[in-house]
């Protein structure tokens, strides 16, 4: 089965770079907006990406293909276990824990490029799980629109005791 994407190659190309924990310091100034969920995403790459990487989550920076090599976006890909019913075994799902586009580079089509890159990476690991999922803040309408554009669809709202927000779960087959 061949899936053809409308590949929205950004006008200013960016390059995915698989990073190590020692590279994360380069994102110390990363900003993606003033909204609460945007601040959470900026904090994730600075503080929470390192422990996630120790739990086998991979992280990419997308850098501008010029001398500056500015970080225009970041993304991540890991796995999680979902229990489908109380007595059923857990299933493994590939997960995008966090992704964000730097505020200076929003509106250039980078988010779709980043997602297409991640879908390619996840498809190469089809044997781990044929499903790719993510959770998005319900106020992040722009992101939800882009996720739908590349084939994700909503599953359910998940509410956690330690967070006030019901995040929207989205999933797609690989």
């Amino acid at each position, binding site marked *: 089965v061949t899936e053809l994407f409308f590949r929205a190659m950004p006008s200013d190309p960016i390059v995915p770079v698989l990073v190590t924990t020692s590279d994360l310091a380069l994102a110390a100034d990363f900003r993606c907006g003033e909204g609460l969920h945007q601040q959470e995403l900026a904090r994730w790459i600075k503080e929470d990406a390192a422990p996630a990487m120790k739990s086998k989550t991979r992280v990419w920076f997308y850098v501008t293909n010029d001398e500056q090599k500015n970080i225009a976006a970041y993304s991540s890909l890991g796995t999680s276990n979902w229990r489908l019913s109380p007595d059923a075994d857990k299933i493994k799902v590939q997960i995008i824990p966090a992704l964000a586009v730097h505020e200076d580079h929003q509106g250039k089509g980078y988010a779709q490029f980043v997602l*297409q890159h991640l879908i390619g990476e996840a498809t190469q690991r089809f044997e781990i799980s044929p499903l790719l999922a993510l959770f998005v803040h319900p106020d992040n309408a722009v992101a939800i629109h882009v996720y739908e554009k590349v084939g994700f669809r909503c599953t359910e709202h998940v509410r956690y005791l330690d967070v006030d927000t019901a995040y929207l779960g989205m999933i797609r087959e690989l």
Partner: protein
Amino acid sequence: MKASLEIDTYAQSWKAQHEEVGEVLWPFEDHLAIGVALFRMVREQEEAWRDRILRGIQDFDPRFDEGFQLIYRCWLQPFREITQRLAQLEQAYGSVKHADEFRAACREIQDILRSWRPPALSTAIGLREMALNDQASTEVKDMLARAKARGPKTVETIPSQNSSFLRKPSN
């Protein structure tokens, strides 16, 4: 007769050396191997504990946090004595098995303790383990069955660079 005496002397000296190696060097090498294996085992346990907390499978308990740090400190306690003895044996016998692994483990434990941060629940919701409600479960089961029956779709892959591509600060 003379040759026989020389061979005998050589054999005696080799025997003495061999006995010394057997009594001193080999047990020391065994201790190094055990020390490194113990460290790997504790490290594996610590990483699994961190993973369980990150994914919300286990609550954070400060007793474990202190416990792991204490084990690492105990491991490092005889470090100075052992490295001194190691240097003496390397001088006497040329090389000591497991010496490099032992030194690497020492450096790694020092780094672990220096950069120690208690584990925390992932702020990225997706990394937490979760149970789905009935409706979502049915939907996911169907998707899973369909995807497995079909096999992976062919998608365009975008190659990644490694981190040497990144500009490092103040370079």
